[in-house]
C-alpha cells in the first residue's frame, strides 16, 4: 500500500508539469518510512545533484521543470521521478531484493549489513513471525550459527541459557542483552510479539559495547510506530496445551519387589517383600504427576504516526500451567509498552519508550535431589497414591504429597524506559544522548507447612517439618545507563567515507533485599500464612547472612573510526576505556582495542559481471574484550560474614569477615579472532556465511578452591576471586540458505547452519590446579572439573571395563578398598599401579557439544504458509544422576538386565544393599546426549483480501503449530536439551523438567 504513495505522487506531479526552473526539495525514505541519509539524488543527464542528509532531506536548486531525478541508494531500487513544481517530494525507495538491504544495529549507531566487517547474525522480523516463539530465546534456537540455547528447565517461565560461541569463562557466560539499547538480564520481560529483529554480535566488533560484551551481544529492536504511518491495530492470540515429551521407564511394583528382594538377599538381609504375588503394577508415579497443561496468550498493539511523530502501544498477557503440578507451577506475564518519537526541530529528535512487565511465577522443586520428578522416579511403586515414603532414605518422598505441600510464588513488577535526544548540526555532526533505566520489584512468598512424608510422627525425611514457616521477601533492583556521544560523518572526494564517533557511558545498578521469616502459622493453613500472623519473626538478611544492598557501576569512554573506500574496502577500529567498581584502585580501568577489515570482492570489476556470484565479502576482526562479571568488592576484606553464638541461651550476632579478599584482581581479557566470508549466489537464491573463530580468554576470573588456612569454610566466608587460567574456544560456523519464488504461487526456503566448537582449558591458576563443580549422588566428590588440557567442566570419574563375571576375575584385577565382588563394575586401573584409587579417575565425558546445527524449511503456497525447523546437538554427554540408589528406591527398567550370575550381563551390575563401589561416579553413569529435535512445525492460512466484506480487516491469518514434537536421541533421561548452564557442573541430570510438547492454535489479525 505504502509503496504506491510515491507512484501516485509522481503521476499527480506529472500531470501538472510545465517547463520552468524550480527548486526541488524532498525527503527520501524506505518502505518503513525510515529516512535514508546519504542517498544520491541526481538530475538525469546532468552533473547536478545532492546527497540526502541525516533525515533523508535533500534540496536541489535550479532544476528545470519536467526534469527527471535519479534517486539511488545501495540496496534499493533506483527510482526516476519527474519534477514539475516545488512541492516537497516524498520519495520512497523500494528495497532491491538483489541487494543486501538490512540495516544492522552495531552499537551507538546502525550500519548497512553490506558494510559490516564483524560476525553479525540477524534474526529478522519475518523469521520471528514464522517461529511464533513463546519466549524470545526460542527465536534464536537453531536459527543463528554460533548461538547455543539450552533451557535450565521446561517449567513455565524458566530461564534459558544463551551461549554465543561456547563457554569462554568459568563465570557468567551469558551474553549482554540490549532491548532498544536498554540492558536487560532476563529475556522473559519481552513479549516476543513486540520484537522487530534480533541481531547477534559474535566477535570482537561487539567490543564497542565494552564491558560484558565478551560473551557476545544480543540486540533486540522492538516494533515502533513511525512518522506518517497509518494507524494499525494488530491482535494476535494463541492457545493450546502442553504435555510431557517422555516418561522414563521405571520398574512396576512386581519388578521392583523382585529386585529389592534380590538386593536385600545379596546384602545378607531379610527379604522386604516375602510375598510378591498380588503386587501387580502398582502406582505409576510419573502418570500421577504429569498432566496436560493449558497455555494462552493474547497480544494487541496499536501503531501509527503523525507528521512529526510516531508511536506504538502494545499489551500482552500470557498464562501457562506446568505439565507437572499444573497450577502449582503456573506462570503469567503481563506486558505493556509504549514508544514515542518526535521531531522537536528539524534537526532535533526525541524518542522515548516505556516497558512495563508483571510476572507471577509459582515453582515446584526441580532439577535437584528431592525434586518432584526425582521423587517420581525413585518412589516406591508398591505404595498407593497417597502413600508414605518409608525406608527410601531421607531424600525421597511421595511426589504428589510434595506438590500438595509446596506453596510459593514470585511476583516481579518491572518498568524500564529510555529517553533519547539526537541533534544534528553543521551538516556532518550528530550529538546524541540516551538515558535508560530499569526498576524492578520482586516479591516472594513461600509457605512451608508442617509436613510428615515418611514414617508418621517422625522426622525421618529431610522434607519433614514439625514447625511451619512463612518467608516473605521484597527486593528491588534499579539501574540506569547514560550514554552520550558525538558523531562525525563525511565523504571526501566521493570515495572516502569516514565516520568517527567519540562517546562516554555510565552505568549504575543498585538493589536492596528485605524479607522476614516467621513460624507457627495457625492451623497450618496457607490462608494464615503471612508474616503478620507468624511468631518468632526474624530478618531474612540476618538469617541468610547476606548484604542487604549492592551498588556496582561502570564508567566508559570510547572512540570508533569507520572508514571505507568506495564502499568496497572497509575498515573499523574501536578503543574503549572501561572502569568498574568490581576492581580495586590499582586495576579499576582497562583499555580494550578492537579492529576489523572487510573487502567486498563482488564490487570489483572482475566479479561485477559474474552471473553466478552476486555478492562476495571477506572480513576479519580481532580485539580484546574485558569482563568484570564477578561479585562486588572482591578486592577488599569486608565484615559481612556470619559469626553468631549463643550466650545466656540467646543468639548473639557478632562480626566476622566475609569472603577472602584479593586486592590484585583485574579485568578478565578475551582475545577474539574472526575470519569470515559472506556469499550470495545465483540471483541471491543461495546465501552463505562462513566464519572461523578463536576466542582465548586470559586472566580468567575464577573462584578457585583455596587453602583452608584462609578461613574460607567459615559461615559467610568463601574463596577469593582471582585471575588465573586460560580457556580457548576454536570453531567454525557455516550457514547456508536457499530461498526462491518458484512460481507465482509457490515460494520455497531452506536454511541450514552448523557450528563446531572445540573448547580447551589451557591453564588454571597454578600447575596441576583444577576447579570442581556439580554434584553426583550424595557425599561424593564433585564430578565436573576445569583442568588444563581438558574441555571446561569435563566429567572426571572411573572408566569401566564391563562387569566382573566371577571371583577369580575380581582376584586377578586391582579393585577399590576390597569391597568388590563378582557382578560389580570393573574400574580400569588407568595408571597401572595395581590399585584403584583417586588417581585412576579420568576424563569420561564432555558436557559441551562438538557441533550444533539447525535446519529450517519454509513453504508458501497460495494462501498457505508452512514452516518447520529442527536443531541438533552432537557429541555432548550427560550424567544420569536421577537415581537415588538407596535400598528401596525404585530403579529404571534397564536394571532388569542386571548381572545375576556369570555371563548374564556385562553392562549392568548386580543389585545389592551391601557396600558397593558401583555407585561411585563412573562412565556407567555417563550417556551420550546427542539429539535431533523437531522444534516446531507450523501451518498457517491467510485469508485473501476479498474474503471479508469488512474493510477494516487488513489481514487475518489462522495457524496451527506443534512444538517439540519429537526428539531422536539415545539419551535415557527426560530431555537431552536441558542443562543447568553452569560452566563447571553443567550436563548433570537430576530429573530435569522436560521441555513440553506444545500444540497451539492461533490467529493474527490486522486492522
Amino acid at each position, binding site marked *: 500500500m505504502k509503496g504506491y504513495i510515491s507512484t501516485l505522487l509522481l503521476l499527480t506531479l506529472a500531470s501538472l508539469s510545465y517547463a520552468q526552473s524550480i527548486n526541488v526539495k524532498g525527503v527520501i525514505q524506505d518502505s518503513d518510512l525510515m529516512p535514508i541519509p546519504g542517498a544520491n539524488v541526481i538530475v538525469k543527464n546532468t552533473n547536478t545533484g545532492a546527497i540526502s542528509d541525516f533525515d533523508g532531506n535533500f534540496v536541489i536548486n535550479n532544476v528545470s521543470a519536467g526534469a527527471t531525478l535519479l534517486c539511488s541508494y545501495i540496496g534499493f531500487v533506483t527510482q526516476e521521478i519527474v519534477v514539475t513544481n516545488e512541492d516537497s517530494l516524498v520519495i520512497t525507495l523500494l528495497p532491491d531484493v538483489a541487494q543486501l538491504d538490512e540495516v544492522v544495529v552495531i552499537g551507538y549507531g546502525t550500519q548497512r549489513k553490506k558494510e559490516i566487517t564483524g560476525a553479525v547474525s540477524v534474526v529478522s522480523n519475518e523469521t520471528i513471525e514464522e517461529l511464533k516463539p513463546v519466549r524470545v530465546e526460542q527465536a534464536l534456537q537453531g536459527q543463528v550459527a554460533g548461538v547455543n540455547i539450552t533451557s535450565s528447565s521446561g517449567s513455565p517461565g524458566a530461564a534459558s541459557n544463551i551461549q554465543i560461541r561456547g563457554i569462554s569463562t568459568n563465570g557468567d557466560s551469558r551474553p549482554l542483552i540490549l532491548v532498544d539499547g536498554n540492558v536487560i538480564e532476563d529475556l522473559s520481560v519481552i513479549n516476543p510479539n513486540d520484537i522487530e529483529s534480533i541481531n547477534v554480535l559474535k566477535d570482537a566488533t561487539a567490543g564497542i559495547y565494552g564491558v560484558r560484551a565478551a560473551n557476545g551481544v544480543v540486540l533486540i529492536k522492538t516494533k515502533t510506530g513511525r512518522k506518517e504511518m497509518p494507524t494499525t491495530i494488530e491482535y494476535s492470540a494463541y492457545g493450546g496445551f502442553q504435555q510431557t515429551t517422555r516418561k522414563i521407564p521405571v520398574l512396576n511394583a512386581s519388578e521392583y519387589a523382585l529386585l529389592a528382594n534380590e538386593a536385600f538377599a545379596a546384602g545378607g538381609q531379610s527379604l522386604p517383600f516375602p510375598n510378591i504375588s498380588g503386587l501387580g503394577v502398582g502406582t505409576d508415579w510419573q502418570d500421577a504427576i504429569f498432566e496436560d497443561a493449558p497455555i494462552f496468550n493474547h497480544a494487541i498493539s496499536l501503531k501509527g504516526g503523525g507528521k512529526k511523530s510516531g508511536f506504538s502501544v502494545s499489551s500482552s498477557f500470557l498464562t501457562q500451567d506446568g505439565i507437572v503440578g499444573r497450577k502449582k507451577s503456573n506462570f503469567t506475564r503481563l506486558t505493556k509498552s509504549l514508544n514515542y518519537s518526535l521531531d522537536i526541530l528539524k534537526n532535533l529528535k526525541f524518542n522515548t519508550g516505556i516497558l512495563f512487565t508483571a510476572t507471577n511465577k509459582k515453582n515446584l522443586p526441580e532439577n535437584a535431589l528431592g525434586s518432584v520428578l526425582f521423587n517420581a522416579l525413585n518412589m516406591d511403586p508398591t505404595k498407593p497414591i497417597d502413600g508414605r515414603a518409608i525406608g527410601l532414605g531421607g531424600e525421597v518422598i511421595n511426589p504428589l504429597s510434595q506438590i500438595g505441600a509446596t506453596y510459593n510464588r514470585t511476583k516481579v513488577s518491572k518498568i524500564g524506559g529510555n529517553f533519547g535526544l539526537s541533534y544534528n548540526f553543521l551538516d556532518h555532526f550528530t550529538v546524541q544522548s540516551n538515558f535508560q533505566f530499569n526498576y524492578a520489584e520482586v516479591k516472594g512468598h513461600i509457605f512451608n507447612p508442617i509436613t510428615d512424608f515418611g514414617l508418621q510422627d517422625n522426622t525421618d525425611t529431610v522434607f519433614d517439618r514439625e514447625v511451619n514457616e512463612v518467608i516473605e521477601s521484597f527486593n528491588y533492583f534499579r539501574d540506569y545507563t547514560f550514554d552520550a556521544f558525538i558523531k562525525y560523518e563525511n565523504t571526501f572526494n566521493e570515495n572516502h567515507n569516514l565516520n568517527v564517533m567519540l562517546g562516554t557511558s555510565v552505568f549504575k545498578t543498585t538493589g536492596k533485599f528485605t524479607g522476614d521469616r516467621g*513460624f507457627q502459622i495457625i492451623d497450618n493453613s496457607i490462608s494464615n500464612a503471612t508474616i503478620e500472623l507468624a511468631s518468632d519473626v526474624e530478618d531474612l538478611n540476618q*538469617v541468610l547472612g547476606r548484604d542487604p544492598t549492592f551498588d556496582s557501576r561502570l564508567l566508559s569512554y570510547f572512540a570508533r573510526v569507520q572508514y571505507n573506500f568506495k564502499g568496497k574496502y572497509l575498515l573499523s577500529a574501536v578503543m574503549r576505556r572501561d572502569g568498574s567498581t568490581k576492581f580495586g584502585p590499582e586495576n579499576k580501568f582497562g583499555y580494550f582495542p578492537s579492529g576489523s577489515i572487510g573487502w567486498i570482492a563482488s564490487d570489483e570489476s572482475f566479479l561485477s559481471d559474474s552471473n553466478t556470484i552476486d555478492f562476495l565479502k571477506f572480513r576479519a576482526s580481532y580485539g580484546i574484550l574485558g569482563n568484570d562479571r564477578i561479585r562486588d568488592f572482591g578486592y577488599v576484606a*569486608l565484615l559481612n560474614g556470619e559469626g553468631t*553464638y549463643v550466650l545466656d541461651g540467646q*543468639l548473639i550476632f557478632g562480626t566476622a569477615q566475609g569472603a577472602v*579478599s584479593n586486592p590484585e584482581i583485574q579485568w578478565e581479557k578475551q582475545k577474539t579472532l574472526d575470519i569470515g566470508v559472506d556469499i550470495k549466489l545465483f540471483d541471491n537464491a543461495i546465501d552463505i556465511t562462513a566464519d572461523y573463530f578463536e576466542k582465548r580468554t586470559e586472566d580468567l576470573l575464577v573462584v578457585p578452591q583455596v587453602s583452608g*588456612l584462609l578461613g574460607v569454610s567459615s559461615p559467610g566466608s568463601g574463596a577469593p576471586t582471582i585471575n588465573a587460567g586460560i580457556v580457548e574456544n576454536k570453531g567454525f560456523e557455516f550457514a547456508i540458505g536457499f530461498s526462491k519464488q518458484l512460481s507465482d504461487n509457490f515460494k520455497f526456503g531452506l536454511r541450514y547452519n552448523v557450528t563446531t566448537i572445540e573448547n580447551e582449558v589451557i591453564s588454571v591458576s597454578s600447575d596441576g*590446579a583444577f576447579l570442581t563443580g556439580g554434584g553426583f549422588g550424595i557425599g561424593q566428590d564433585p564430578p565436573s572439573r576445569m583442568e588444563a588440557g581438558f574441555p571446561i567442566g569435563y566429567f572426571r570419574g572411573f572408566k569401566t571395563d564391563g562387569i566382573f563375571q566371577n571371583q577369580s576375575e575380581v582376584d586377578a584385577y586391582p579393585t577399590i578398598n576390597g569391597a568388590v565382588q563378582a557382578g560389580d563394575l570393573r574400574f580400569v586401573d588407568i595408571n597401572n599401579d595395581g590399585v584403584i584409587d583417586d588417581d585412576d579417575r579420568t576424563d569420561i565425558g564432555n558436557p559441551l557439544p562438538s557441533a550444533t546445527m539447525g535446519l529450517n524449511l519454509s513453504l508458501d503456497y497460495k494462501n498457505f504458509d508452512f514452516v518447520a525447523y529442527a536443531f541438533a546437538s552432537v557429541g555432548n554427554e550427560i550424567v544420569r544422576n536421577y537415581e537415588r540408589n538407596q535400598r528401596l528406591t525404585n530403579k529404571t527398567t534397564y536394571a532388569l538386565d542386571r548381572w545375576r550370575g556369570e555371563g548374564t550381563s556385562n553392562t549392568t551390575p548386580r543389585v545389592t544393599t551391601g557396600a558397593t563401589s558401583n555407585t561411585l561416579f563412573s562412565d556407567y553413569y555417563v550417556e551420550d546426549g546427542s539429539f535431533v529435535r523437531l522444534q516446531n512445525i507450523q501451518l498457517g492460512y491467510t485469508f485473501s483480501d476479498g474474503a471479508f466484506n469488512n474493510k477494516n480487516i487488513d489481514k487475518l491469518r489462522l495457524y496451527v503449530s506443534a512444538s517439540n514434537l519429537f526428539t531422536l536421541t539415545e539419551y535415557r533421561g527426560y530431555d537431552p536439551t536441558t542443562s543447568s548452564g553452569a560452566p563447571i557442573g553443567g550436563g548433570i541430570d537430576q530429573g530435569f523438567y522436560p521441555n513440553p510438547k506444545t500444540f497451539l492454535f492461533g490467529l493474527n489479525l490486522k486492522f
Partner: protein
Amino acid sequence: MKNFKIKLFLISLIVVCSCSDDFVNVESEDENSENFFNSEQDYQDALIATYDALQWTYLNVMLGEIASDNTLAGGESATDVPGIQEIDDMIHTPVNTQLRDIWGFMYGGINRANFIIEFQDKTEFADKNGVIAQTLFLRSYYYFELIKWFGDVPFVADKRIQFGDQFDIDRTPKAEIYAQLEQDLIFAIDNLPTVQVETGRVTKGAAQALLGKIYLYQEKFTESASVLESLISSAPYSLLSDYSTLFENDNENNVESVFEVQYTDLEGAGFGCLQCSEGNVAVGFNGIRSYNGPLFESGFSFNVPVQEVVDEFEDGDLRLETAILDIEAWSNETGATYTEGNEHTGFYNRKYISRQGDTNIGDANLTNPNNYRAIRFADVLLMAAEALNRGGIDDARAQLYLNQVRERAFGNSDNNVLATGSSLTNAIYHERRVELVGEGHHFFDLVRTGRAAQEIDGFIQGQHELFPIPDIEIQLAGNRWCQNPGYTTTATCSN
C-alpha cells in the same frame, strides 16, 4: 535563541555525564576489616564470631568417638558419608571430606581470633585484657584440636592468614605451638573471672582445665597436676550429684560444666552449610533412625556404640543407662518403634541423641539445642588423677579424685579404687572411658597413652596416631608440607 538553548542543554548533558573516574569508587556498606576495632563493641562483636567456631567442633567430637573402639560409623548404608565410614574402619586416606572440614573449620576459628590479635592495640578500653584472654583461650582450643588431629600444623599467632600467605607457612613442630598455647592460657587464667556475667563465656576455670589438658597431652605431669589441682580446690565447680540429669537440655551449664559449647534451636539450618547451624549437628547424626516413641526424636543413626563399650561398664555402674541407650529394651518397654541402620548394634549414644521438646525449626535434625559439655569437672578430676599417678607425684590424691568420680557413678564408696602405680593408671584409663563415653575423647586418650594399636581394629602403629592432612590442602598451600607418615599421598613436599 531556542536553538541556542537546546545546544546549551545538550552540551551540558555531555559535561554532566563526563563523570570523573571517582564515579567508580564505591565504598561497601559493609565495614572494611582494615577499619574496624574503633570501640569496645567492635572487639566484642569480633569475639562473638570467634566463639562461633566452637559450634563447628561437632564433627571433631563425633569422629573422635567413631575413630575409637567405642562406636561404629553406622548411618543409613555402608556408603552413607564415606569419609566417616573410612575413619571408623581405619582405612581413611588423604582424600576425606570430613578431615578437610575439621582442618578448614579450625583455621576458620583461628583466623577470627587472629583478626582481634592483629588489631589488639588499636583501641583501648577498660576490660581489654578480658577480651584478649577469651580470644587466646579460643585460639588455643582450636590449635589444640588441630594438633590432636594432625600433629605439627601451620602456625600463625599475630595476624590473619591472608590470601597469598598460605604459600609461605610451614608446619610448626607441635612442641613450639604448645609453648605458645601454654603462654596464652596462662595469660587467660590471669585475666579471666571465675564467673562470667553471661553464661557461655570462657572462665578462668576453663582456661585452667584446658592448660592442664595440654600439659597432660605433653606428659608434663607436674605442671598438669598443679594447674588442675588449683582448679579443683577453688570454687565454683563440683560434680553434679545425679549423673543421669547431666546431659539433659534443662540442665545445661550446670555446676559440673567447666567449659561448655553453647547450641540453640532458635535458628534453622540446612545441609548446604552444616557449620552455619546454631544447633548441635552431631546430635541429629547420632539420633535413632526412624524413631517414633517417647522422649527422643529421629536421627541418622551414626556413631552407634558397640557391645564392647557396654561391657566395659562394671556391674552396678549407674552411668550405663545414661550413656548408652539399648534401643531394643527401650522399644520393648515403651512401645517405641525405629528402624535399623547400617552397622546396627542395638545401642545409641544416649548423651547426645535428639530429644523431644525443642522448637524443631529449620531442618530439625541439624538444629538440636544440646550443648556439648566440652570439659566436665569429672574430666578435670580424672586428668588430675592421671597426672598425679603417671607423674609419680601422689597416688593417694589420684585415688581421691578418681574415687570422687566413682562414688557418684555407683552411688556408694564400695567400689572405690585402692590400687596404686600402673594398676591405678589402668583404673584411671578405664574410668575415663566409661565416664566420658560418647563425648569424643576416647580416640585421643588411646593415642596419647599409646594404647590405640592394641584397642582399635585396623589401627597401624606409626601411622594412625595422626590423621592425614588432606592432599588437596597440601596442594593448595603450594606442596610445602610432607604428608603424615604412613599415608599414600599424591602430594609432593618440597623438603
